[in-house]
């Protein structure tokens, strides 16, 4: 069976190469025209941004030195299907049929019915998924925002409903593991659950979320190598290790991030936007 498939693939790719060859001379200009421009058409998603008071925190992976997070603004919830639809309508190059694999792999907006139709039975108010880091970043930019940094995201993620830092509560991690382990959670509407200490919703119970520097985690893909100072693989890396080996929820988040590439699109991976507090836009 798989052989038949391969034959098709083979024939298909030959066909493709012929086409590619014949197109090449004429196609160069065409390509130039479709070259990416950094300017996104502006969108104005109607989402409240919560002001987060910065401070020092201990990253989950590190050399146990504290990291300072500046005051910033964070969307109170993830970006929704409806908002992303509006974005692609105004920015056609981010439509599914126009996307380049450099910026999103072949499952980009996979469940959408077509370029401008949300998935069947999808709630417009559910978080958008199957979006790449590039797409998330472009969305944020067009909204005059940016993606939160990993430190910003994790800083807010320390909070539970009552306190800014619930890490030491024994139920914190266990509770999250069960939220994470729930299937199809991404289909739910945003803001159905309770907000955390800051008034931020859905940090854990809907989707994994892109961060701007998701690829800054200096762990190897093999999570068991206790510290990550392999000079062959990583340059100048201080010996880093997990701050709290019992925090399984954090292990999961970091493991998830380290399995990603920027053009990946995944069924339960979405994003929310952030913004510097002082400046209006970057």
């Amino acid at each position, binding site marked *: 069976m798989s052989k038949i498939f391969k034959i098709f693939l083979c024939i298909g790719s030959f066909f493709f190469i012929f086409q590619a060859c014949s197109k090449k001379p004429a196609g160069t200009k065409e390509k130039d025209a479709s070259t990416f421009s950094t300017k996104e058409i502006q969108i104005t998603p109607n989402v409240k941004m919560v002001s987060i008071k910065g401070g020092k925190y201990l990253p989950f992976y590190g050399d146990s030195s504290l990291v300072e997070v500046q005051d910033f603004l964070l969307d109170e919830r993830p970006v929704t299907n409806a908002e992303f639809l509006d974005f692609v309508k105004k920015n056609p190059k981010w439509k599914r049929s126009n996307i380049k694999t450099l910026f999103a792999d072949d499952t980009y907006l996979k469940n959408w019915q077509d370029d401008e139709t949300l998935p069947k039975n999808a709630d417009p108010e559910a978080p958008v998924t199957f979006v790449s880091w590039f797409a998330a970043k472009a969305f944020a930019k067009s909204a005059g925002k940016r993606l939160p940094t990993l430190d910003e995201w994790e800083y807010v993620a320390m909070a539970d409903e009552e306190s800014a830092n619930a890490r030491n509560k024994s139920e914190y991690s266990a509770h999250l*593991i069960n939220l994470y382990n729930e299937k199809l959670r991404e289909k739910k509407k945003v803001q159905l659950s309770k907000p955390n200490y800051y008034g931020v919703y859905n940090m854990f119970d809907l989707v994994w979320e892109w961060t701007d520097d998701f690829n800054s985690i200096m762990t190897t893909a093999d999570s*068991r*190598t206790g510290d990550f100072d392999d000079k062959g693989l990583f340059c100048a890396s201080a010996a880093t290790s997990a701050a709290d080996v019992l925090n399984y929820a954090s292990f999961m988040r970091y493991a998830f991030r380290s399995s990603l590439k920027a053009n990946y699109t995944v069924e339960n*991976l979405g994003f929310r936007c952030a913004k510097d507090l002082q400046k209006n836009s970057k």
Partner: protein
Amino acid sequence: MKHLVTSFALALLTLQACKQNASDGSAGKTENAMEIKVSGETENQKAVNPPTVPAPIGDRAAKKVIVHLEATEEEGELADGVTYKFWTFNSTVPGSFIRIRVGDEVELHLKNASNSVMPHNIDLHAVNGPGGGAEATNVAPGKEAIFNFKALNPGLFVYHCAAAPVPLHIANGMYGLILVEPAGGLAKVDREYYIMQGEFYTKGKTDEKGLQEFDQDKGVDERPTYVVFNGKKNALMGANALQAKVGETVRIFVGNAGPNLVSSFHVIGEIFDKVYAEGGSKFNENVQTTVIPAGGAAMVEFKVEEPGEYVIVDHSIFRAFNKGAIGKLKVTGEKNPKVYHKVQ
């Protein structure tokens, strides 16, 4: 595509290749395993569900074998009326038994189901290389990783997921066995079975009904709620008991996934004629109970002389009778009074 071409080219020669290699097949010592050339048609190994295993490799030459595993996360039954969110390889606990020979070149495809929540990977103890493949296969939901390895050491090995947090991935059921047969294959037996012991740590007590959540504290404290064979209490009981006939030799590939406990594997009423302790190449004879470490395996072989039901246990016996580490082998056939009979 690559395989298509090579297999097409080589398919013509397969018959001859087999003939040629069969003669030097038995010469494949471990030290020379690197030098063993693969030949013949590429095999796409079909997954079979435990406790069955793929057919013996016999005396075939080393070849290229493609193995497909899919990491899944699905709710299933852990005991009567008790459900659990298992993480699996190929939707079974343990995952599909992989069967190859020394010198084989394996192309392992690890797909992570698109509706998975977690990233997964695979560490095969049969692999020589960093992480046993874990680093090469860390794969996000909906994606697929492919990696190649050459089997250098014969033996019975555990494989498991090693994505962070590793203990959780193992505790949820992500493990299985891979058998690397020596050149020439294992001795022929009448029956082969695949049993893997594993612990489960649930919030509720043993047999407490309903969907049970993972209990991290119990895991860290090494206090399992369940110790079971093949992912479920009673997986090898009743209609699912293993079968054999009087006079047959039974070989059981036994693995222990842990994540914490060491198993004292025993078949009540039988003596293992041979035990390949720790899954290695040497066998011990006439063994009652064999120890199988967490992350280890053993092959046990015995001839059954008397009909009846033989109970398979972890002889740390509370586990067997209270936590589920119990199974059965049903032997049918003629009674053998010389070997066993009740007088009064």
